[in-house]
């Protein structure tokens, strides 16, 4: 593997926050303060200069370490205020870090906003050149890309109209188009895809995809649009409260960010889940999926699986138990319900600790995707425990019919036999 193209070492950024006054400070206030309390003023100035004042220091980022290899597309995700944008601002040199060091090998282009520096009075043509220069393109580069930019933005007709007369859609298209034609080695992008109508967004995503796949550019991508992140990024970094909480495989990090418990080989521990319903005489401890008696972390279409959960009772006898699994699509739409209620297989009584298994007695029918599982436990008429979205699992491409043929047109597979007979 080649050496990393971005190395971020111990980056930290602090802001001082003063609580007394917000906004900017008027010189007048400083002067009247100085006259009213000259000693106190001098004292506080002295403290300011020597750094003795007690200002609250807020660490927007702390100990950020990561490296990115050439050609990687890394998503940076996290909740609002987690520090993503600060990190991007440091990476694009808009603000400098308080501590630490970043080494970037290659030309960096950053896109924290589309249309930075667009001037409403200038025409589309003029703004293309101005914006390009601001984004770091040379005049030669722009001249050679000019036609492509105009074509992508679909504004040929209005090229010589001041952009203040543009519709907001045209404006945004032009702005994105200029940005999309930058050719840096490293591209830093902040949430700029949330612009334009659905069609244009699709076009943007397509363009981004092309930039990454075909041109092999290294990209750092911040977004709240998980679909876009999933589509573009091969790796993700999750930032929470200014620190890197996790980094790794996109799906895994996204599910962590969305607080979806992704099924792993060791199973999903749900003892810490408090968002459960029911009387609680029986409690679900963990959930896992088995294939031939072995725990798995991903499923394949057409495989043979057993859904299992471990439980503990509080010691009192629990009788006439009904267990239910429901599998939902990522959107929450119910797809499959497996329940002892349906098969009339109630458990007369439960051991104090145990595992309840539901073996899916056919080839696994769901197509590629991410699915959620919920568990429900009833004793007689009473609900004892219910955990919604106890786990999330991924289904990968599998060979359901043993023919090697795949399809994206069928969310669910069924066993099928075909025949033809002559009609009289």
């Amino acid at each position, binding site marked *: 593997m080649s050496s990393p193209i971005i190395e971020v070492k111990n980056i930290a950024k602090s802001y001082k926050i003063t609580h007394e006054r917000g906004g900017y400070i008027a010189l007048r206030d400083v002067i009247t303060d100085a006259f009213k309390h000259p000693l106190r003023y001098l004292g506080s100035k002295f403290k300011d200069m020597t750094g003795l004042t007690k200002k609250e220091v807020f660490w927007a980022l702390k100990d950020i370490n990561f490296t990115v290899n050439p050609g990687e597309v890394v998503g940076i995700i996290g909740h609002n205020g987690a520090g993503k944008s600060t990190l991007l601002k440091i990476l694009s040199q808009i603000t*400098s870090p308080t501590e630490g060091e970043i080494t970037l090998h290659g030309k960096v282009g950053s896109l924290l906003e589309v249309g930075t520096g667009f001037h409403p009075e200038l025409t589309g043509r003029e703004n293309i050149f101005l914006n390009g220069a601001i984004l770091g393109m040379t005049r030669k580069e722009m001249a050679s890309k000019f036609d492509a930019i105009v074509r992508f933005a679909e504004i040929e007709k209005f090229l010589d109209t001041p952009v203040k007369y543009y519709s907001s859609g045209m404006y945004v298209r032009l702005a994105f188009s200029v940005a999309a034609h930058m050719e840096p080695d490293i591209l830093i992008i902040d949430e700029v895809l949330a612009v334009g109508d659905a069609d244009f967004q699709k076009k943007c995503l397509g363009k981004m995809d092309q930039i990454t796949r075909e041109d092999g550019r290294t990209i750092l991508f911040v977004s709240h649009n998980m679909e876009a992140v999933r589509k573009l990024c091969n790796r993700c970094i999750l930032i929470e409260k200014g620190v890197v909480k996790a980094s790794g495989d996109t799906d895994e990090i996204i599910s962590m960010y969305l607080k979806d418990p992704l099924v792993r080989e060791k199973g999903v521990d749900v003892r810490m889940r408090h968002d459960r319903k029911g009387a609680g005489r029986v409690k679900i401890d963990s959930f896992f999926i088995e294939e031939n008696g072995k725990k798995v972390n991903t499923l394949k279409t057409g495989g043979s699986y057993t859904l299992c959960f471990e439980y503990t009772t509080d010691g009192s006898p629990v009788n006439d138990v009904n267990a239910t699994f429901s599998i939902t699509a990522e959107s929450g739409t119910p797809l499959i319900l497996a329940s002892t209620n349906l098969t009339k297989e109630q458990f007369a009584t439960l051991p104090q600790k145990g595992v309840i298994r539901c073996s899916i007695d056919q080839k696994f029918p769901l197509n590629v995707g991410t699915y959620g599982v919920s568990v429900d436990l009833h004793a007689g008429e009473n609900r004892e425990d219910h955990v919604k979205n106890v786990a999330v699992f991924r289904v990968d491409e599998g060979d359901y019919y043993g023919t090697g043929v795949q399809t994206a047109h069928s969310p669910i597979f069924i066993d099928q036999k075909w025949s033809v007979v002559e009609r009289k």
Partner: protein
Amino acid sequence: MSIITTIKPKKIFHFSDLRELWNYKELLYFFTWRDLKVRYKQTVIGAGWAIFQPFITMVVFSIFFGGLAKMPSDGVPYPIFVYVGLIFWQFFSSALGDTSNVLISNQAIITKVYFPRLILPISSVITKLVDFAIAAAILVGLMFYYGYTPHISGLLLIPLLLLITFMAAVGGGLILASINVKYRDVRYALPFFIQLLLFVTPVIYPASIAGAYSKFLAINPMMGVIQNARAALLGTAPINWLLLGISLIACFILLIVGIYVFKKVERYFADIV
């Protein structure tokens, strides 16, 4: 992978900054081009304003100060006397005003894109230099009208005078711009201050009327510039090299201090602007 960028807590000044400034010369060109292009959009007489303003000022001053108040003018017709002063003064004052506002008015770009920030004040002063050149055309006409021919040596002095004015405007402007980031008072104080400054600079009167006190006027670097501009173009007096030298050094120091202060604030102004 030839370019390697290292991002660290910023030092105030580094020599690589100068090279970087050079690398971004294209952006400097575009900022200047933008300012020029946008300036007179949606106006009827367009660039005519660059001529109109100093010209009308000259006419009004000539009527009131030259004609009615009988202001002495070192033996030169008053209109041409005051006009030389005015175009240099307007170059200085408008450049100073623009530079001090440059961070605020380009806030949207500063908080989103990186480039050496010094480009902004430099481009705004270059824009003013274009205005100066346009206004100077009138001066040529005036000199023809009054039958003055400048010495070649005098014309050669003009670039040096412009350099001094440039340094004074950028140096002062950078300091004010840095203060402006934190204290917006600058925006209100400066126009007023520039107006006052006009009266302590020998624009509408010759420095000679201050008599023995004219030495104090020399504190103002623009005095050296304007006096010598008149000396060079109109031959009102021999060129005062001492005054010129002092102005040059003072403005150079002002520029260095300005850059230092600006670079110091540069580290955090994207956070607070």
